[in-house]
């Protein structure tokens, strides 16, 4: 047994006083959870501490909190590790972000998380006529949505979302991951409508800033951001051109890298607004945007930040190198089906020769594996270690 210090954020709206910090000492072994620490403080020191919890085994998703500023399940974080990461040795626990606080560590999930879930029609929309017997779905298509089905609705990703921090109307990582669960389901009748809806919403799938915070926060390896990228990819397949420039931006980016080998930033911006062609910059929307950005464009040119030659003509790879890049584009784009390697499903090779076994981490495996962030995988050394 050893002593750990907890610093809890306390707040009782009914009291009329401001939130405050309170410190508690608990006596537990280091491998016990932060939740057990909080419950010991509640049981032995102050019964009024508010915390929501149930299973204590990272499956009910009730005890999401901020531990030393990062969202996690309290029952899924060891005391010794939390203490090592604390800036002054005292484990700091706060209620989750992006949601109103009801009391102490309990946030209002109904006001934000569940409302956003409802936003994406989180149920299967039947095809008509409904088949007399069960739907037959191809195995691979269900494997594809396994990852988004692993969600336990704890709201950790919602709490960690940096886009929602600025734009509270953002549909958010949990709900968008749920949306992919149905967009990827071949039994659903309205995939196009779902995608169109979330692409056209100014706070929909194109409002994600790609910050990886939800991937980091998720205790179940759902990687909500990756599901959002899948939504965008499939929206592209359906040729959904949205008013948020999402699809135009992606398509202009890809075209420009194919044409130049490098990114031509000055051309990317007008094309994102005006359309993916050389004429894009003459579209009224591109003009409007240029006008809005005039102060920075003028300053940039005055300070010689942008070289006018590069701004106008871009920078290109040498001809033969560009040829190699374009051949890669042609080869990959001409494939009959997209090849996607989802490491959540496939896992890592056991060793260099074992490529053939790589499909072993199937959905059953994924569901039963210990959920150290990335279920179904044996995370090997990072390629950059």
């Amino acid at each position, binding site marked *: 047994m050893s002593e750990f210090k907890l610093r809890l954020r306390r707040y009782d709206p009914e009291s009329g006083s401001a939130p405050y910090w309170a410190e508690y000492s608990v006596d537990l072994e280091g491998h016990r959870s932060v939740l057990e620490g909080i419950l010991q403080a509640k049981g032995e020191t102050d019964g009024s501490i508010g915390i929501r919890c149930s299973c204590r085994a990272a499956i009910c998703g009730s005890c999401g909190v901020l531990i030393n500023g990062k969202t996690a399940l309290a029952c899924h974080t060891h005391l010794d590790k939390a203490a090592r990461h604390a800036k002054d040795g005292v484990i700091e626990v706060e209620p989750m972000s992006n949601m109103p606080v009801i009391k102490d560590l309990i946030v209002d999930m109904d006001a934000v998380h569940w409302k956003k879930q409802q936003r994406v029609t989180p149920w299967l929309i039947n095809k008509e006529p409904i088949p007399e017997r069960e739907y037959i779905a191809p195995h691979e298509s269900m494997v594809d949505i396994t990852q988004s089905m692993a969600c336990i609705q704890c709201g950790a990703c919602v709490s960690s979302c940096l886009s929602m921090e600025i734009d509270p109307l953002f549909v958010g990582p949990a709900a968008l991951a749920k949306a992919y669960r149905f967009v990827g389901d071949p039994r659903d009748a309205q995939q196009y409508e779902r995608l169109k809806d979330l692409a056209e919403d100014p706070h929909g799938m194109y409002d994600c800033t790609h910050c*990886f915070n939800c991937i980091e926060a998720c205790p179940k390896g759902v990687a909500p951001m990756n599901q959002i990228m899948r939504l965008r990819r499939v929206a592209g397949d359906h040729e959904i051109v949205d008013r*948020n420039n999402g699809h135009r931006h992606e398509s202009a*980016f890809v075209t420009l890298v194919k044409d130049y080998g*490098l990114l031509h930033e000055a051309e990317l911006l007008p094309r994102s607004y005006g359309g993916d062609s050389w004429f894009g910059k003459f579209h009224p929307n591109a003009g409007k945007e240029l006008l809005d950005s005039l102060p920075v464009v003028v300053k*940039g040119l005055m300070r010689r930040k942008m070289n006018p030659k590069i701004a106008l003509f871009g*920078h290109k790879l040498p001809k033969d190198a560009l040829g190699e890049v374009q051949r890669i584009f042609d080869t990959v784009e001409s494939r009959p089906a997209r090849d996607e390697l989802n490491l959540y499903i496939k896992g890592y090779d056991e060793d*260099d020769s074992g490529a053939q076994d*790589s499909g072993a981490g199937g959905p059953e495996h994924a569901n039963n594996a210990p959920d150290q962030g990335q279920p179904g995988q044996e995370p090997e050394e*990072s390629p*950059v270690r």
Partner: protein
Amino acid sequence: MKVAYWPGCVSRGFTPELHGSMAKVAPLLDMELVELDRASCCGAGVIAEHSQELADTLNARTFALAQQTGQPMMMNICSTCQGSQTECQERLDANAEYRERINATLEPDGLRYDKGEVLNKNLLWLLVEDFGLDELRNRVKRPLKDLKVGPFYGCYIIRPTDRLGIDEEKPRDRYLHMLIEALGGTVIEYAGQHKCCGFPIITMNKEASLKQAARHLGDALDAAADCLVTPCPLCHLNLDLQQPLAERYGGRDLGLPVLHLPQLVGLALGLDADDLGLARHVVKPTTVVDWSQSVVAGVGGSQSAGW
């Protein structure tokens, strides 16, 4: 140290002062840069959003070109390159069958990526892990004494931690802090240091994008920072180039200079602000230049530094 060097696109496009300052700093660190001038854009996550295989093949080609230089180390100067290239490398390394499929596409050009042959590191990681902060300290000619610097990492270089090899042994999400201290500066802790600059959604939701930039800049100012330093040129675009617009969306005056990583290192190694291209920033780095005791009037006026 000799490294295969991938400068990225933006460092040669809208932030030419980044590529330029790296070239100035390299000899002072005995670094020989073998530039990968045939490599393509990493895709910045956007090509992967369109087609994962396309992004993986383009980056496998870059790794193969690095391999051809015979140097085991490949260096980048962009958080976003680091993140998106590592994502592709993780997939290439994870599955031999997939890797061979990608290599088959590269084969007609005599290129091939082999697992374990390329270690791709951002300048920041290289300075801390390979060059060493003690060695760096020895070379500092003008310690950043009394300069209050706020670190801004950029998402791609700190998340996801598993993929980027960040743990207690290699606290790469603290390296900027350690570096600023090693250069003699004062680290400013502020809320936005590990947050998103907002750049990826600048064309999709400009208001949200620039409000993010404005909030982090404001937090750093409130914490009394003289400047920020970032290893990511895309963050630099939103934090510096767009700062006048961020002021409008954020509803407050900002005026906080943002330095590229090699610029900060260069200042401490004794280079002039002008040589490091600081005059090219949209936000005049007055606080930094005052500190470095250069002629204030020279900033913005002198256009002699040319790359």
